[in-house]
């Protein structure tokens, strides 16, 4: 079938030399020596002028990590990682902590310009001082950006506006100094140091990330947003994010990621912890388009992430939405531990694998409280030689009377060299719980493509339209502004229209 063959060609021509964000910024770096040992952990802690308790916490994590084995259960293949062959600390040199954008390296701002951040956010970034006064502009919800450049958070906007409501949104390294009680109370309380191999590594060497605290009864007046970017050559990026929504608090957090092109694989092992108290709601949205490697599978980011939420309070709700189009390997299971009675966990996911990309992603929903409910909607798209695995766990504890789960897991295949795999685990220990699982696998049919083309759409547009239709249930969960970007990204990842 020539049409299908052409689609394959198109799909396969996507990445090499076409990765839109493949540039690197020349900023003087401040490196720790290569390799990983106790001294490096101490170096990082010292660089950040951390209190003793945090250094001890890191060292404990490092000692735990040493005793652990790299997990081999995900269905992904990659050469063994040499953890001694990477830098664990790289910070852009800044005189002191930047107090305004004027103090931010102009090179860095140029980088954000190239990233396309300026479309909305840089306007906001540029107007840090005045912009925070009005809660909305042009009817749109404003977005506060905490930009993470390699390892150090360099620009945070809207702080003043948020502070009015008592909201804390800052770099976690800053929070360690400004709000030590909060950080000490919650850090590692959702994902303990020894949780898994990469979480332990992260706990030992995490460099920066975001910290959010929404006080009781406060509805955050804007979307909070972080742009991550991996820039230094061979630098592992170990983000640590902690979000706490106190009783009745409501917050929506957006995480967007792009990384410049690199030949070597770069390890990214982030940890994200969310805590929701009584009646609190956290919506966490991710659009991830890190460098996926070239058409032959060289390079690309290893994205080994631990994301977990605890719904501690009654009627609390956490919703994860992710659109994963980048990275050579994705290993990621944003999860919800539903402790509070009537708490709600949601997971909406789109994962695309193209060329040699591999994704093993899904979620864990742990039902502990009574009448807890969870919803899982996963859309996996495989093209080229991509391998896409959904791995999910729904566990209902004996205490979770009346718990409910619904899982829907759909796979779409483009071409005949890719793979889709579904690995759902269900453990139900309560007779009153209801757990449902639905799964489908389909292809973009030749007749669908022809139908679209007969109406005037190019083959690329047709694939984009069909894929977006396939992902609709997930995309509609994204905040409006993000949804538009995500739709474009789906098109870009599959159609070679980059640059």
């Amino acid at each position: 079938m020539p049409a299908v063959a052409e689609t394959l060609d198109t799909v396969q021509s996507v990445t090499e030399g076409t990765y839109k964000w493949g540039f690197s910024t020349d900023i003087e770096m401040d490196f720790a020596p290569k390799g990983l040992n106790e001294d490096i952990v101490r170096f990082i802690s010292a660089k950040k002028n951390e209190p003793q308790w945090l250094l001890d916490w890191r060292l404990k994590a490092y000692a735990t990590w040493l005793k652990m084995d790299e997990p081999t259960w995900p269905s992904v293949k990659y050469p063994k990682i040499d953890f001694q062959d990477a830098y664990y600390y790289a910070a852009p040199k800044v005189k002191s902590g930047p107090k305004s954008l004027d103090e931010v390296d102009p090179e860095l701002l140029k980088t954000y310009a190239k990233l396309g951040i300026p479309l909305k956010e840089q306007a906001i970034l540029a107007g840090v001082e005045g912009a925070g006064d009005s809660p909305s502009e042009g009817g749109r919800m404003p977005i506060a950006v905490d930009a993470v450049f390699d390892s150090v958070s360099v620009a945070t906007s809207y702080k003043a506006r948020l502070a009015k409501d008592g909201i804390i949104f800052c770099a976690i390294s800053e929070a360690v100094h400004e709000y030590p009680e909060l950080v000490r109370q919650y850090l590692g309380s959702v994902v303990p140091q020894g949780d898994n191999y990469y979480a332990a590594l992260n706990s030992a060497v995490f460099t920066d990330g975001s910290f959010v605290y929404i006080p009781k009864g406060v509805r955050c007046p804007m979307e909070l947003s972080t742009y991550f970017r991996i820039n230094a050559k061979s630098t592992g990026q170990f983000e640590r994010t902690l979000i706490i929504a106190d009783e009745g608090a409501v917050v929506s957090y957006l995480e967007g990621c792009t990384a410049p092109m690199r030949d070597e694989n770069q390890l990214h092992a982030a940890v994200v912890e969310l805590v929701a108290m009584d009646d609190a709601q956290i919506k966490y949205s991710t659009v991830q388009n890190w460098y996926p490697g070239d058409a032959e599978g060289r390079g690309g980011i290893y994205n080994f992430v631990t994301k977990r939420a605890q719904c501690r309070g009654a009627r609390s709700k956490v919703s994860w939405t992710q659109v994963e189009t980048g990275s050579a390997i994705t290993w990621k299971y944003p999860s919800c531990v539903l402790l509070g009675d009537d708490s709600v966990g949601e997971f909406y996911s789109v994962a695309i694998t193209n060329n040699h990309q591999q994704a093993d992603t899904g979620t864990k929903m742990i039902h502990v409280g009574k009448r807890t409910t969870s919803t899982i909607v996963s859309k996996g798209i495989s093209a080229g030689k991509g391998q896409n695995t959904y791995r999910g766990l729904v566990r209902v504890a004996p205490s979770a009377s009346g718990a409910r789960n619904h899982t829907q897991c759909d796979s779409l295949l483009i071409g005949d060299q890719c793979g889709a795999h579904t690995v759902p685990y269900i453990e139900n220990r309560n007779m009153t719980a209801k757990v449902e699982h639905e799964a489908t696998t389909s292809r973009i049919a030749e007749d669908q493509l022809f139908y679209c083309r007969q109406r005037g759409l190019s083959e690329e547009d047709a694939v984009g339209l069909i894929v977006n239709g396939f992902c609709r249930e997930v995309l509609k969960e994204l905040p409006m502004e993000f949804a538009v970007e995500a739709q474009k990204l789906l098109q870009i990842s599959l159609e070679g229209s980059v640059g």
Partner: protein
Amino acid sequence: MLKIEGLTAEVEGKPILKGIDLEVPDGEIHAIMGPNGSGKSTLSYVLAGRDGYEVTGGTAHFNGVDLLGLEPEERAAIGVFLAFQYPVELPGVGNANFLRTALNAQRRARGEGELDAMQFLKAARARLKELQMSEEMLKRGVNVGFSGGEKKRNEVLQMALLRPKLAILDETDSGLDIDALKIVADGVNALRAPEFSSLVITHYQRLLDYIVPDRVHVLMAGRIVKSGGPELAKELEATGYASVQAAA
């Protein structure tokens, strides 16, 4: 004007069209009738450019343009529209979004300005009203969960919006009740204009009571074996294809 000369085509190595000669002048509607397996659908797919329908000889020109050298979407942009015998479902794709994307893709290809959401909606509502269809039609997924009749109506709605210069209707009447049949016919008749022509492919004479063709051609075993005026259709209805076959 559509001009087909000596067209031969095969599917999976099997010859289906064995030398078609056909001219449809501007402003005319021609019917192609024939028994199952005579090559009617193959002819429509070959003209629209579907993969797997291999042209092995002959030519097809539309207003002087070599159709066979164009991609399907390029044929659409110069005004070729195929109403499908089995319209395809596109799950999750809204009908309005699909129609606007298609319309704007064609307009772009022709160097015309694109319609924004409001302009499109206005145009779509006007067509819906003419066709006596509900606005619900726009909100649903493309053909998803549509009954057979609704799918055919949706084809007519698309045709009305895209305003083709050559509409090929591939057994659009199959499976339709009389009311739906009238809607399809009204849709085609509404497009009648000096610069519009249509090829109505049908198994039965029934549709031709509502869309009165200028010419009727009988396709059998990959060849046009008989041509005539609208009365030929009535004749076939009375005597069946066997009589034509015997005569041919």
